[in-house]
């Protein structure tokens, strides 16, 4: 009995010594992983909600979905995690779109729209006044605590789009989905590109124009990742 207890004690002490040696030989703990950078892409409209109607029987819901898919691929290739609100022609409630964005805790939320009026790219931030963050914000004005960050995101997008030679209009508006998002959020509305004589130089159904917009927005979000990094 005594010899058994002695044996167990020897084993315990030996085990502790072994563990201590392993701990001394182990490599240093790895540094904390870089904070994840998530972008939410909300292709507006879908299903029965076709949105605007453009030339050549094109509808807004199809344009926004195509832009969302293209942008997701470009961002994914740059190592950016992307969350989309829809991947097919389905109707999604505006509140559900905001819920998806808010659950993603994203660093940038883009609501994609298109319009036949105006020229170039229209960037809209929420018209809500900036407020202090609160623990339980009101759903319809949840964006109020993020307005300053949203304006900064709009400024960053504006800068990259202007550098790419695009016409940009900055504005403030009240959109149901935008006003409920708790992330830096901007509504991006794509319009045909007009020349100085108001003639259309790039239509919405021009594949080259769509590709140029998508690549410029992707570059702008990469730049925003650098700016948003603490």
């Amino acid at each position: 009995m005594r010899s058994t207890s002695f044996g167990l004690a020897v084993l315990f002490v030996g085990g502790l010594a072994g563990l201590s040696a392993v701990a001394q030989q182990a490599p240093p703990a790895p540094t904390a992983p870089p904070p994840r950078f998530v972008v939410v892409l909300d292709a507006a409209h879908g299903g029965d909600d076709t949105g605007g109607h453009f030339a050549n029987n094109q509808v807004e819901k199809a344009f926004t979905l195509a832009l969302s898919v293209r942008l997701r691929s470009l961002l994914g290739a740059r190592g950016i995690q992307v969350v989309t609100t829809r991947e097919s022609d389905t109707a999604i409630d505006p509140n559900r779109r905001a819920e998806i964005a808010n659950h993603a805790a994203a660093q940038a939320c883009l609501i994609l729209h298109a319009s036949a009026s105006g020229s170039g790219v229209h960037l809209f931030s929420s018209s809500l006044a900036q407020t202090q963050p609160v623990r339980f914000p009101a759903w319809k004005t949840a964006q109020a605590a993020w307005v300053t960050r949203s304006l900064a995101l709009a400024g960053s997008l504006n800068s990259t789009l202007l550098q790419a030679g695009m016409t940009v209009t900055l504005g403030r508006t009240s959109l149901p989905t935008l006003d409920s998002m708790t992330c830096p959020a901007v509504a991006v509305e794509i319009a045909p590109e007009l020349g100085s004589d108001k003639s259309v130089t790039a239509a919405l159904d021009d594949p080259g124009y769509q590709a140029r917009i998508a690549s410029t927005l992707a570059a702008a979000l990469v730049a925003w990742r650098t700016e948003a990094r603490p």
Partner: protein
Amino acid sequence: MIPRHQKLLFGILLVASLIMGVTLWHLRERAHQKLLAGQNSAPTSAPEVAPAEEATLLVASDSDGSMLTQLHSLPLPVDPGARARAVLGKLLDIYAAPDSTHPVPGGGASVLQVFLLPAPRIGAAKPAEAPSQQQTGPQLAVVNLAGSFAASHPAGIETETLTILSVCGTLHANLPRITQVRFLVDGQPRATLAGHADLTRTYLAADAVSTEGARP
């Protein structure tokens, strides 16, 4: 040979039929006049008898998303509600014109009514206002638009936002007591104007005025 009493009966029936026909035609004319008189009681344009005054309109431009002030001389009624409807009618007539910088079909007839109410205080419980304050205090304008106007409005964030802001700014420029604006379509609340801009919220007229000469 027709008996005499049958001839007499036939004559009476003929005269009665004629009298009834004339009476029905007369009643129909009276009903028609009454209907026309009812329509006239709600004019769709400013009365010509009102003196022409200068109205300030905030006119939107789609090309650069801006709003510019324009002065127009038009007959303006004395009643504030009718006055508000008259200036908005002029604004929407400009938008419906072929050379419009912000093309929106419908014209002035798209403004069905403008109701003016004492403005509720935003973010606070409504206190009881003195009658004198109700006559001089800030007002909420409820603009009732025609369903055909919303249905035919071009879809887009920029174009819808410009329409709303120019309506709010024009109301405030001509009736400074109007500080808040709400919208109805055919007398009912509506989620968006044409699928984008929120129509359920109360718009502050000052926000629209601050964007004058600049983008929204």
